[in-house]
């Protein structure tokens, strides 16, 4: 396949067109490019990728190939980048920038005759010295002519890329201005394997699909080569020559602010509890009004018995008593589990016999057959007396 260089394209529009036609729909394998300093004139000399030095942060800009605007440049904005001696002099046109070394990340395009890619660049970091766990971020910027769109389906999905590399995160931002759609694709790779020695690895080529008005065609960003280094190798770690690996991190001391808050909350809770207990147990002693369950029941029973609607239903009075027992226990109390009630509320123990009798009586009234539910006043009085006794028991601290 014939290679297309941006530099060549500048020389002759016709020639570039021919090249593009030839390259249409395909991936350009052996690519050539031109090398120039930042802001330097575009080089026209072809460069083969293996000649180019691997470097830190490379930016590559490709212009609209079939137009006079066509430009192609690689820039590096790595601070402190120095000329690398291994850079071969490929051509007299190659210039090394003052503060930047141009590096070899080649981009090849294979657009259709009506070239649509206005701009394509990839920002890459340094290409050496990666160890397991390191992340590598690439930023692909793409601008397309009006009428062309990027097929979002062709953006790669996160996943394992190779033995060495996993693509962890892919984000895409697209915006459209004056018909030109601009896309920024950020790829975050991670080195997921440990190398035994310094080895070369690379990102896979990225094939982006452009949807044109007539047909679709791919734009391929070729793979980016870099090297993975071991963290330690057996030979450079004989005993005593290198310090041992650092010991594991100790846990950070726990934050005391949380604990203080907890202690405060507990204190407040305890204080509240003490206040509640004090109120419940001491209020009666100091003549304060309490709201015990039996006290309430006693008041209601008395109101019933004094009230105008005589005769008072015995069953109603019994229900008052049951309600008070249930409220005291916090559950439904039945004749057969009174023992549990006395265990849980020992203050009622002295009243065990009359309370048991009351439950038996109530059982006969409510579940027996045909016991008269309107008892005489003697029964009512005894229930009221028991209720008063329970109220007094309730007040015992």
């Amino acid at each position, binding site marked *: 396949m014939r290679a297309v260089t941006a530099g060549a394209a500048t020389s002759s529009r016709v020639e570039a067109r021919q090249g593009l036609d030839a390259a249409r729909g395909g991936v350009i394998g052996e690519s050539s490019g031109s090398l120039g300093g930042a802001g330097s004139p575009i080089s026209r000399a072809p460069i083969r990728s293996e000649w180019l030095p691997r470097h830190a942060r490379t930016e590559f800009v490709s212009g609209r190939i079939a137009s006079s605007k066509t430009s192609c440049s690689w820039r590096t904005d790595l601070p402190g980048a120095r000329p690398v001696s291994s850079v071969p002099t490929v051509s007299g046109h190659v210039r090394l920038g003052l503060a930047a070394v141009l590096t070899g990340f080649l981009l090849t395009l294979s657009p259709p005759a009506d070239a649509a890619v206005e701009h394509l660049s990839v920002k890459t970091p340094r290409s050496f010295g990666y160890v397991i766990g390191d992340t590598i971020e690439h930023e692909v910027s793409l601008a397309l002519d009006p009428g062309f769109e990027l097929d979002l389906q062709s953006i790669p999905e996160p996943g394992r890329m190779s033995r060495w590399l996993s693509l962890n995160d892919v984000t895409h931002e697209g915006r459209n201005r004056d018909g030109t759609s601009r896309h920024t694709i950020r790829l975050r790779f991670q080195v997921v394997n440990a190398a035994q020695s310094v080895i070369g690895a690379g990102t896979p080529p990225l094939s982006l699909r452009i949807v044109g008005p007539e047909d679709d065609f791919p734009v391929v960003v070729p793979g980016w080569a870099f090297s993975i280094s071991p963290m330690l190798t057996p030979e450079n770690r004989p005993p005593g020559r290198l310090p041992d690996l650092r010991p594991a991190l100790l846990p950070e001391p726990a934050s005391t602010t949380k604990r203080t808050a907890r202690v405060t909350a507990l204190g407040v809770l305890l204080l509240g509890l003490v206040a509640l207990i004090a109120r419940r147990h001491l209020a009666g002693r100091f003549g304060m009004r309490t709201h015990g369950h039996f006290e309430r029941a006693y008041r209601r029973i008395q109101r019933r018995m004094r009230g105008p609607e005589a005769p008072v239903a015995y069953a109603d009075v019994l229900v008052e008593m049951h309600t008070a027992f249930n409220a005291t226990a916090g559950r439904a109390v039945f004749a057969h589990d009174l023992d549990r009630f006395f265990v849980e509320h020992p203050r009622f123990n002295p009243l065990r016999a009359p309370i048991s009798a009351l439950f038996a009586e109530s059982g006969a009234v409510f*579940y027996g057959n045909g016991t008269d539910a309107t008892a005489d006043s003697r029964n009512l009085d005894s229930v009221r007396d028991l209720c008063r006794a329970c109220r007094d028991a309730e007040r015992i601290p």
Partner: protein
Amino acid sequence: MIEAGTEIDSWRDRALRLDASANRIMIGQERAVRLLLLATFARGHVLLEGDVGVGKTTLLQTLARGIGGAFERIEGTVDLMPSDLLYYTYVTRDGQPRVEAGPLLRHGPDLSIFFFNEINRARPQVHSLMLRAMAERHVNAFNTEHQFPHLQVFADRNRVEREETFEIPAAVRDRFFMEITIEMPDDPGLLRELMVDTRYHDVAALINEMEPATVPFHELNDAAARIQASVGTSETLLRYALDLCAATRNPAAFGIELEGVTAAELVQAGASPRGMSMLLRAARVAAWLAGRSEVVPEDIHTVFEPTIAHRIFFNPIYEMRRSEIAGPFTSAILEAVASP
């Protein structure tokens, strides 16, 4: 009336004798024995659930011997088919194929107890045949209808394994009068006795100690009907029972709270009308066995969990935790619903 009363009393004596006799063999399982007895006198089928080796099978065999009548048992397996219950085929010595009645049909109407071991290992096809036999007490086979008027099904399942088992469908579960959970006795003395006493090593010999046929099985249906008629229920008690069943359907309305459970989302379907009638039926038998002529809440409490718990269907997220939720849930209902 007095005659009927004495007859009821004599039945109670027999039942209590059966109870005492079974408790001599099954130590530490008084509650389970009592509930099984209640189910027998209410003519209900029983599903026993518990861990492996707690004596489910022994208990059922003991009671089966005490009740008397024809007894059949079958082991639930994954390849058991409904036809295996009805007939089996074999080739005679002279080469003739023969078809014989299977365990369910072999004794005809005299079948008293059908014991289904590990029922959850059988497939749903078998469950549906059992459903018919249990609910209608008859099955169709060989172009005729076979009646089992005295049939009582005892089934057990262990709750440890879930592999290669089939969950018993809701409809079949509802047909069981009671689901009784057998727990290991807590008493260390009893456990020691179970471990040391050689009497418990030979289960067959142990069961033979049971006094056989203490109650005549063919009179049980009659006795059960008379027991139901003899025990009364007051209006207050009926209201209480209705409240309890309502609480199984809508626990949040009764202020029931369980730890780790959203009460409002817990229940998919509560106690069915059949369940409610079974609850009262069981409570009447409990009252009769306690010598009362009226049902009191204590009787309801005795039978509430075994008759109702397995008829409550939890939402799927809670269904898997049934064994840990069902008990506390029924207890919470009993504690929350007051009467009178």
